[in-house]
């Protein structure tokens, strides 16, 4: 593997992690909001 393609792979991996974390964050925030709302209802 050339240095260039390794750098490209690293960049792609970083992008993948950013995408996954942002989706994960949306999931966690929605879950927290849901739990908060239901807790008000208990």
């Amino acid at each position, binding site marked *: 593997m050339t240095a260039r393609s390794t750098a490209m792979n690293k960049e*792609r991996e970083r*992008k993948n992690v950013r995408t*996954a974390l942002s989706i*994960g964050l949306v*999931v966690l925030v*929605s879950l927290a909001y*849901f739990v908060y709302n*239901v807790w008000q209802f*208990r």
Partner: protein
Amino acid sequence: MSTAVHGHTHGHDDHAHHPTGLRRFLTTTNHKDIGTMYLWFAFAMFLTGGVMALIIRAELFQPGLQITHPDFFNQMISLHGLIMVFGAIMPAFVGFANWQIPMMIGAPDMAFPRLNNWSFWLLPPAASLLVVSLFVPGGAVAAGWTLYPPLTVQMGMGMDLAIFALHILGMSSILGSINIITTILNMRAPGMTLMKMPLFVWTWLITAYLLVAVMPVLAGAVTMVLTDRHFGTHFFNPAGGGDPVLFQHVFWFFGHPEVYIIAIPAFGVISQVIPAFSRKPLFGYTSMVYATASIAILSFLVWAHHMYTTGIPLEAQLYFMYATSLIAVPTGVKVFNWVATMWKGSLSFETPMLFAIGFLFLFTIGGFTGLVLAITPVDIQLHDTYYVVAHFHYVMVAGALFSAFAGIYFWLPKWIGRMYDEKLGKWHFWLSFITFNLAFFVQHFLGLAGMPRRIPDYALQFADFNMVSSIGAFGFGLSQLLFLYIIVKAIRSGEKAPARPWEGADTLEWTHLPTPAPYHSFETPPLVK
């Protein structure tokens, strides 16, 4: 979709450096290995859930209590539903996603291969919990797959095992979905724009978003049941001022999109198979994408059509009736597009196409009975009858399962490099088609005549149709053993598959990779024009 591709055909792909034996499958990060494991796991669960279905149908063969205790019958009903939905159909389509998405978008693997391995290996412990719950004091969950309280607040520890299993299955689905979304958004080959993606990939992108949105809701709902059971809360327990109907709202906010989580990837498979055997591009590609997205969005807005009999206000009944009827529009767009794809096509009827056409006929029947049930006054009569059971088995079995069969026969040559026995494949289709209708078509009549679901005994006037249904169910079950034989025969001694066994198939895995697909594919991405 027709995609012109140029560039090199495949790289140094055949050098598959991987452990062998059990370690290969325990530690693999290869999307093809993981796809294979998902598919075999789903098939094992399909047989497990199938045996439970046959216990149910054996009990219902004649009126009166024959072979099971009523409580055990309820456990069979519940586990059959949970295992088929979460253990069989969903993992089967995740198996397709693993195998196909990287190859269809020209990616070397999924975005997070190790996460992918973990998503799979979460499944066997969860499925084991469900099955083992049969043997704990009080037995397995016996409230149906919908897990309605207050029953589920009162049950034995089998319910706790089911809750834990659902937590694990939900985690697996969320992680798998994040992986799929990231793969599709970030790892497409140069030139593969979103609107050039094969429809199967589109359907999975939309499904993954649905999963991410609703699995936490299910996890929340069952966790609330858990805290009601053990930690003194009263969310759903009327004895403490809770509201069981609240659970139904939360559950169906997950449950209705779940129907589309199962159906939409099935639409994706059918959208690949029908053009290939019609030798024409898919009719109305863009409208298919928008129709799929519309179905997904609408699926969030119709949940209370499962709850017309709970006493929701008339205005709410009207809203949910109209909103539900609206789903028929994008679904109709899809059905008409599939038919228009076949129109004036150069059709041939190999096994994948037979299952796709079988899907088209029977899923449309399931869709129409869904519309019947969407009409509030009709549903109030038919709620919890066998009409509902018939309806959703037309969607789940003839819809999702037939589409999975179509996909397996279609891509098997690409996966294993060998052909299945075409004659036996056709036998499998016709036996499945006929016995499926024997088992489930008559259930419409039983429901219309008022036979309730989830009951181990019934009045004498329902006897004949129940006998027919049970005969059909056993025939359907036996036909699936033929399917297993066909697959094993193909793997062991199938004829060598040509590079492109279906000349109408034009996605990257067919045009750009050898058959069978090498262990590592698209290490250098292809250029898509």
